[in-house]
């Protein structure tokens, strides 16, 4: 019996234009389509695989505004059993430290958990530190950047892949795992899964419900402040080579100049 909590974040669709709001440099959620982060589809998939290999229950936990219910429903339609949604105006602009505190408090609302699975980093903020912070707050082992996860009884083995290579790590449960995009290929929901999702329980909580002081979270309490933001400059047009019979050599010269050949 493995009880798994999957952390799910709703992010702006990477297919749409993403930007920060002019007023406070937080994410402009209205300007883009909101979807479940792709890495979280893989987190859910890994949880479902562990559940299907043995026994257990998969709970989705998401901190986000009201419309994050769409991301939660997607995870439920893939096969997760139930969800907790922390939604509170005061969370707007929270930094990673505050977010990790809120997630840790929300985990206190779960009966018991053996494993927390997160993505290694969200495609919007790209901080990548929430899993480690959360493990610290919970006082449990952290196994980050996993490309393979094996649960055996009360222990967990992970192949941890970074730029430096692969490390084989092992810990006892409960633990926090973060997965990379190499972990698996997520399943598609089915229409039956979509219909089943609407009957699954979703508990919606405020920060007060979690016993967290609203003054400790949000933009005002963030440890860092975004002073200025500018969009990535558009890609420049590149260099044009006029072909006067010697186009091939000119292209080759350019590539040699760039040390590409």
């Amino acid at each position, binding site marked *: 019996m493995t009880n798994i909590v999957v952390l799910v974040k709703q992010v702006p669709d990477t297919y749409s234009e993403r930007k920060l709001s002019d007023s406070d440099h937080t994410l402009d959620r209205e300007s883009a389509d909101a979807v479940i982060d792709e890495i979280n589809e893989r987190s859910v998939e890994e949880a479902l695989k562990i559940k299907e290999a043995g026994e257990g229950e998969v709970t989705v936990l998401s901190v986000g505004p009201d419309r994050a219910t769409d991301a939660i*429903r997607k995870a439920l339609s893939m096969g997760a059993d139930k969800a907790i949604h922390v939604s509170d105006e005061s969370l707007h602009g929270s930094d990673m430290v505050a977010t990790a505190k809120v997630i840790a408090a929300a985990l206190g609302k779960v009966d018991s958990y053996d494993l927390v699975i997160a993505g290694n980093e969200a495609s919007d903020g790209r901080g990548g530190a929430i899993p480690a912070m959360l493990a610290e707050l919970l006082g449990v082992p952290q196994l980050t950047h996993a490309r393979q996860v094996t649960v055996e009884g009360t222990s967990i083995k992970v192949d941890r892949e970074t730029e430096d290579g692969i490390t084989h790590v092992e810990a006892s449960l409960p633990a926090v795992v973060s997965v990379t995009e190499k972990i698996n290929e997520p399943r*598609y929901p089915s*229409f039956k899964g979509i*219909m089943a*999702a*609407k009957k699954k329980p979703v508990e919606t909580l405020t920060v007060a419900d979690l016993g967290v002081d609203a003054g400790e979270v949000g933009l005002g309490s963030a440890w860092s402040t975004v002073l200025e933001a500018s969009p990535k400059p558009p890609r420049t047009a590149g260099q044009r080579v006029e072909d006067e019979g010697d186009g091939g050599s000119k292209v080759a010269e350019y590539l040699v100049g760039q040390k590409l050949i």
Partner: protein
Amino acid sequence: MPAERLLPTTEAEDLLALTRELARDELAPLAAEYEQAERFPREQFRLLGASGLLGLPYAERWGGGELSYEVYLQVLEEIASAWMSVGVGLSVHTMSCFALAHYGTEQQRERWLPAMLGGDLLGAYALSETHAGSDAAALSTRARLDGDAYVVTGTKAWITHGGQADFYTTMVRTSDQPGGQGISCLLVDGSTPGLSAALPERKMGLTGSTTSQLLFDGARVETGRLLGDEGDGLKIALASLSSGRLGIAACSVGLAQAALDEAVAYAKGRTQFGRPIIEFQGLEFLLADMAAAVESSRATYLEAARRRDRGLPFQRQASIAKLIATDAAMKVTTDAVQVLGGAGYTRDFPVERYMREAKVPQIFEGTNQIQRMVIARELRNA
């Protein structure tokens, strides 16, 4: 821009989101290559089946999705927009389940329907013969009773999924009575001995979808596979087509939407005389007319679908939707080639394929001349 839809429920929104994801990631990237190679996308139908999309408008107790036509047709439109052969195949499969779902006995439905709707099996619908197209009642494939089976001999023509399908909803003649009275409907297993498919037709478009003649040479089909009574076949066939042609209307709107999207994207990116060509009124008006044709066609099939969902007569509206949507798709895809100019005429861009694919919906599931006959008959009899 993608089609803007008003959907009735969040489940419908989630279903359309799933459909778009499947269409974008699993269908669209393969379409050009498969069509070029005349390769049948059997695996893609299995994926749709695993996702629960091969039984959407049928009852949940038989494994269907219990979905309204209003929503089912929009799913179909999105699939066809990514890949017309798969959209048409999904529509044909759904139509081929109609006879059993609506005319089968409880026992027959219990025995075969869950597998047909469950996603692993693919269906086909066999009505036409070479000499019996618009005049379907002239069909002559003969089924003679021999003990506990019909022995079927004859040749069906223009069968979508011919040789690929796992079951064929087949119209045969069970008596020598002339015209429609002697026609009956059999649910034929694809592996029945004496049943085979001829070589695929060499078509202008929808080249990834197999179309062939179906050869019955003394094929024994157990009498338990007769759907409805003997003599009900033509009625069942025409009822199937009334719903089926709504599917063809939806597919044609999807195809036209794909052509419009391609044309708009090209017109924004292509510069002539120092400006993107979309800024020239000559093209702007062409694109506006294309958008008007797509959206009015969509509204027309949705109106017919809503009537069907409410249990109101919808035959005239279905024929109007099929006529309007397929003629619109022909015009929109032709104009899309015009917008792309010389590029549009090459196989480096998809619009010439769309134009080839748009032709056959004006022909199959009742030619557009037959649709006009259906519409006019209702006007006459009203």
